[in-house]
């Protein structure tokens, strides 16, 4: 499961023959995706084409006009009936396909494209048919999807397959005939062997050289059509911020209630009991010194327990080592307190802002607790780095995998807390392991405080 930031950064295409061939191969993947999208839309439009063809095939003669009108009405009716059932599933399926295009544009072309569909007015399952149709059709993103299918089918696919086509045609049609008679050489004047070799090599070389750029061009084309307009992107951002803000406020309020309850039931209650015990001891100290001494010992025990509870509470709010030394040492201290075998690699030259530090600490703490509870891992690796304005933390274990955020609220909770900082959490946990959790939080580091040493 991944949650993408709404404003991801673009990357440069990687250069090199291997990556060029990969790029050509990816282009073919996009072409395949184009076929699927076009096929899907044809399912919807097929009856129009079929109708037009049938109507056109009716011979024009006296009396045929009525027949033609009847046919048009018939296809119109059939079309409406089909549309009634097909529009919704086709549009939703198209969303999945363009969603895949968006994701792959990020992964393959280095041009991540954000998704900006309007949220359904209510749970889509309970929505009335016309309400769902209105929801889909009133969304500009739906129309952008359809526009993309048309553009992709007309020109997009050429960008996608061009380099693969150049390489394959150059190799099969021009170079193979030079060495083998199984394939006839292309028929054009002056098709001597040297000319064929030069042309073939030129085509293959052009295909290889152009592949990353064509792939990137395809990504940019997809972005111009599929990426949300600035306004939509801002709306998306506002929606994301107001949601995470209200969640952050909720978590904060819940946390304060928990602290209040813990203090009330724990340390506060013990101090009250202590006061009463001391009072009782004071009343009998002259008449029964032995009993008074026992009461005093009891009061002392109460104070020790109150202190222990306060310590545990403070540790849950803001662990001392985190305040003292920052994230790296705080997690080092955490690893010293668990029976897990943990390899920690921390490479921070400064300290993230305190709220980020705290969120990251509790996230790692929760992940390690998950590992020790569920993973049956022999070893765990924690990796903390900061680069390009991004704090990256990886927690990997060689346990049995199968961690599913849907099954426990822990991972969801971490994700929600990170979202308040525009942070993301990605998890890969196939059954049988290993489990790799990666967290990314955008933040800057401040240089370490210099103080007395």
């Amino acid at each position, binding site marked *: 499961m991944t949650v993408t930031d709404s404003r991801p950064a673009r990357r440069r295409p990687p250069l090199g023959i291997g990556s060029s061939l990969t790029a050509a191969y990816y282009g073919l993947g996009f072409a395949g995706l184009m076929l699927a999208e076009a096929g899907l839309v044809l399912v919807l439009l097929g009856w129009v084409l079929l109708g037009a063809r049938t109507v056109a095939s009716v011979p024009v003669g006296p009396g045929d006009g009525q027949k033609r009108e009847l046919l048009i009405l018939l296809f119109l009716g059939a079309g409406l009936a089909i549309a009634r059932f097909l529009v919704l599933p086709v549009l939703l399926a198209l969303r999945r396909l363009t969603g895949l295009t968006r994701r792959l544009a990020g992964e393959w072309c280095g041009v991540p494209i954000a998704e900006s569909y309007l949220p359904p007015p209510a749970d889509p399952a309970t929505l009335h048919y016309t309400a769902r149709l209105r929801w889909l059709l009133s969304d500009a993103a739906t129309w952008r999807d359809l526009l993309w299918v048309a553009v992709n089918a007309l020109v997009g696919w050429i960008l996608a397959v061009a380099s693969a086509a150049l390489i394959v045609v150059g190799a099969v049609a021009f170079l193979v005939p030079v060495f083998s008679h199984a394939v006839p050489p292309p028929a054009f004047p002056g098709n001597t062997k040297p000319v064929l070799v030069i042309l073939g090599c030129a085509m293959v070389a052009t295909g290889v050289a152009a592949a990353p750029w064509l792939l990137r061009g395809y990504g940019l084309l997809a972005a111009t059509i599929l990426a949300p307009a600035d306004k939509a992107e801002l709306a998306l951002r506002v929606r994301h911020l107001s949601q995470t803000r209200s969640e952050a406020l909720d978590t904060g309020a819940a946390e304060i209630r928990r602290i209040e309850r813990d203090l009330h039931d724990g340390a506060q209650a013990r101090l009250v009991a202590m006061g009463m015990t001391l009072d009782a001891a004071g009343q009998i100290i002259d008449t029964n010194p032995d009993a008074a001494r026992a009461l005093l010992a009891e009061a002392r025990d109460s104070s020790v327990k109150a202190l222990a509870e306060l310590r545990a509470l403070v*540790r849950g709010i803001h662990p*001392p080592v985190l*305040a*003292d*030394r920052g994230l790296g040492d705080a997690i080092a201290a955490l690893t*010293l307190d*668990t029976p897990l075998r943990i390899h920690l690699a921390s490479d921070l030259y400064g300290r993230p802002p305190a709220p980020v530090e705290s969120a990251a600490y509790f996230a790692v703490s929760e992940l390690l607790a998950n590992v020790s509870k569920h993973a049956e891992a022999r070893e765990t690796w924690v990796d903390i780095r900061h680069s390009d304005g991004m704090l990256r933390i990886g927690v990997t274990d060689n346990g049995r995998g199968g961690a599913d955020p849907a099954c426990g609220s822990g991972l969801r909770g971490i994700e929600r807390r990170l979202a308040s900082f525009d942070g993301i959490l990605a998890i890969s946990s196939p059954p049988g392991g290993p489990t790799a959790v990666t967290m990314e939080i955008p933040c800057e580091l401040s240089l370490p405080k210099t*103080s*007395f*040493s």
Partner: protein
Amino acid sequence: MRVVIAEDLFLLRDGLSRMLQAHGLEITSAVDNGADLLAAVAKDQPDVAIVDVRLPPTFTDEGIRAAVAARREMPGLPVLVLSQYVEQLYARELLASGSGGIGYLLKDRVFDSAQFVDAVRRVAGGGTAMDPEVIARLLARNTGNVSIGALSPREREVLALMAEGRSNVAIAQRLVITERAVAKHTASIFLKLDLQPSDDDNRRVLAVLAYLEG
């Protein structure tokens, strides 16, 4: 015995001084920050320094750093660090900070003045005083350890007390058993954990701590 105290809260500094004086210890200086501690240690040449972890100006881990710095300037200086909480990370740093007695205790331990003064004397004498909570967490960390699993409950009690830095005599008093019984338990523990037995109390403590820290 001459003691230097560094504690920034007046009430605690005062209470600690009075309690130690009541037990016949001499307080040569009582300061409230790390820089003054270094100066006092250099001037007074005390038998032991008692240092709070949180000191001005940043109120973070100044005490630990001051203790380590003091031991660097005065090798072998016994230091007892007091804290509102204990961290294994800091315990390790203190143990690694050179030779000489070292102690790391929760402030709560001050409530039991007899035990506390005993710990101060032990550290001043070059021994070790680790807080029971540090040891409990070290043992909890070793739950999967087969050798420790093979120890009897009594042996585990002895192991914990030994790791805190207590001598056989003190362990015997604490568990209300004879010294010979303690010696038998320790021999068995060292055998099961495959550690070199040692007559030197403190070397024995350090070996056990090193083993638990794994």
